[in-house]
């Protein structure tokens, strides 16, 4: 990325006001407004000029937001389905895409016209993403892909998929992968919802049957897909390791406290109340510690001494969440025998409307916290090896051809 050119805050604010003169959020729909925002270089100001940015520091994106807020009650923020495209798709296109890709794809990613999804995980390759076995075989100017992807958010809404697939089974596993832009409307691409413990399908399975992809849609070099994918994964992990509420007693803690305060009086013996209260206090503490650790992480980052606080959060939060919602259920006691939301299989959940409803939903949903975005076991490996410098285990899957590595 080019060095940010200096532009002072006031100049930037003036440009925002100019955009608002052309299109005002209160009178323009989201897509149209965001198209204009892109044209003005105010989509992501840290991108280069001509690609929706102005070559500024990433911090200055806040100023755009702030200036729009000043002049409009309506804010056209990132559409939920576009989070992946904007967070992961756009940087990848910018770094590895052709000029034509950048020009055609980036505006529609930002505007929300085209949703993107990420096609890395496979049923046989969970923690071991690089062990994936979908296979692309070259056929003239095209590749023919077969395989199955899983855990694909918004696949059913997507126009484009970021596909990581094997192109050389004879190479060691990390070296035989390539990265493609997949047209999700192409023949042979089939998307099926994957229902979870709650009955919702936040994710999809994507089946690829003889799907043809032009060679020109490969991002990065052949066999260098892992390197391209790594950037994407880094962004994902940061996105998931939230770090709890920013406000004391806020967020999930607040919901737990509501469950506690609204508990049925007399349902628990005094001793049971004392123990539940201690568990609630522990959860309160846990969330405070997450919050304070995130705060400390920001301070260290700012001071230029990033510590291990960030990596710690993902692991801790998963366990903290599960414990917290278990406590909420035990506070409700037998009232938790009823699951009012029901289990109708559905693609998107309506948010439960009571604190008890939220707690019951989260009790189930939170089981995934220690799995999604890196299992707690993998996170402990990462903390142990990358942060503490402990040695790795003997590996039998490296430096041998992928096809010779045992797999299930």
């Amino acid at each position, binding site marked *: 990325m080019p060095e940010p050119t200096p532009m002072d805050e006031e100049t930037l604010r003036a440009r925002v006001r100019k955009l608002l003169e052309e299109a005002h959020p209160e009178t323009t729909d989201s897509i149209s407004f965001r198209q204009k925002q892109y044209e003005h270089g105010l989509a992501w100001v840290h991108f280069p000029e001509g690609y929706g940015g102005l070559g500024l520091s990433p911090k200055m994106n806040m100023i755009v937001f702030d200036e729009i807020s000043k002049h409009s009650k309506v804010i056209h923020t990132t559409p939920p389905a576009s989070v992946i495209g904007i967070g992961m798709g756009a940087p990848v296109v910018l770094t590895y895409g052709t000029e034509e890709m950048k020009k055609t794809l980036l505006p529609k990613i930002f505007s929300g016209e085209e949703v993107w999804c990420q096609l890395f*995980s496979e*049923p046989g390759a969970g923690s071991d993403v690089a062990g994936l076995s979908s296979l692309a075989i070259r056929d003239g100017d095209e590749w023919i892909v077969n395989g199955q992807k899983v855990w694909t958010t918004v696949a059913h809404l997507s126009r484009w998929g970021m596909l990581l697939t094997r192109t050389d089974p004879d190479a060691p596993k990390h070296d035989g992968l390539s990265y493609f832009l997949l047209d999700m409307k192409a023949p042979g691409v089939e998307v099926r919802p994957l229902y*979870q413990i709650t009955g919702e399908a936040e994710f999809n399975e994507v089946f690829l049957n003889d799907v043809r992809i032009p060679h020109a849609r490969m991002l990065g070099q052949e066999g260098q897909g892992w390197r391209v994918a790594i950037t994407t994964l880094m962004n994902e992990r940061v996105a998931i390791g939230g770090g709890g509420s920013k406000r004391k007693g806020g967020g999930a803690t607040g919901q737990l406290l509501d469950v506690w305060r609204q508990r049925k009086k*007399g349902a628990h013996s005094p001793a049971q109340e004392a*123990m539940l209260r201690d568990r609630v206090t522990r959860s309160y503490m846990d969330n405070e510690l997450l919050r304070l650790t995130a705060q400390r992480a920001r301070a260290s980052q700012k001071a230029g001494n990033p510590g291990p606080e960030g990596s710690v959060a993902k692991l801790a939060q998963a366990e903290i969440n599960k414990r917290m919602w278990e406590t909420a259920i*035990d506070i409700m006691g*037998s009232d938790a*025998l009823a699951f009012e939301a029901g289990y109708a299989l559905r693609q998107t959940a309506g948010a439960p409307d009571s604190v008890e409803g939220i707690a019951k939903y989260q009790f189930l949903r939170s089981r*995934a916290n220690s*799995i999604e975005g890196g299992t707690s076991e993998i996170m402990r490996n990462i903390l142990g090896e990358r942060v503490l410098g402990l040695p790795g285990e003997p590996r039998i899957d490296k430096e041998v051809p992928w096809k010779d590595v045992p797999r299930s």
Partner: protein
Amino acid sequence: MPIEMSLTDEHEELRATLRAFLNECSDEATVREQMSTERGYDPDVWTQMAEQMGLAGLIIPEEFGGAGYGYVELLVVMEEMGRALLCSPYLSTAVLAANALMHCADEKSQKELLTEIAAGRMVAAVAHAEPNGRWDIEGLEMTATRSGDQWTLSGEKTWVLDGGSAQVILVLARTDSGLSLFRVDPEAPGLRREAVPPLDLTRKISQLHFEDAPAELISAGDQSANFERVLALTTAALSAEQMGGAQWCLETAVEYAKTRLQFGRPIGSYQAIKHKCADMLVETEFARSAAYAACFAAAEQEDDFLEMADLAQSACSEAFFHAAAETIQIHGGMGFTWELPVHLYFKRAKASDLLFGDAAQHRESLANRVGL
């Protein structure tokens, strides 16, 4: 008196027969089919269990058409049913209602109802808990109203197992002589039965609203102590079911850990997974000891039976819940999908823990009994 806690060859035969039956009638597809019905079980299978295998009347005395077996046989049966996640009114009818009738009801009702239950012709629900959220005997507050020879009931009963499909409802309510047992016709005027959407789809529950509903008094004298025993007998049986569920989780997790390869080797070869499995084994074996102790103590009418029932509920609830949670974790992403059956065990585990007061409450009860 120390109990000799071991199963005989006959018990193992019973287990084998039952497992073969459940492999057939409670395979995963059947469980999913039944749990999505309103009734929640297949009445033909229920009849079959009663008529061909004598299961409905397993602990009902022979004079009432039962098999006249004891709690050791029930231990084996519940363990297997828990393992197979059977959808059935077994707990409500063959355990809770049968025990309530055997310990609290008059002979006429025993004869009439136990015979029907044993024959598989009657599903019976016991209505005891109330909206106050308590599970102890003192928490039962509904008071029956008498006018002449007629009794009526008003108020609410919650978490009634199979209350929606039962052909008879046994209601605990207070009278001048103390806690009493009533028989209510499910179609009685003034009784409204409302299905509760359950956390655990494999066991259906209802809320019952009574408004001057006619009821027949079928007990004599205060049934507090008797019904406390009924509840303990029910949790003892349930603990065996929970232990069976934990055992399924352990086996399923271990099997997956052997066959799922990541980074070129089975995930069970990694200590993170191996040690989880080892800890599950310890907790499951302890749960087995607890369920055995409670059921053998019930069978032998040991003095410490109530204490052992508390111990078993607490140990087996936690063991099953932990086992189910770890089994989800060991399965990774697939573990929390609807597609795999693990989540059904997870929900059963939590619901079973909450059903008659949770593990912590039973520990407190145990502490009271032991005098801590």
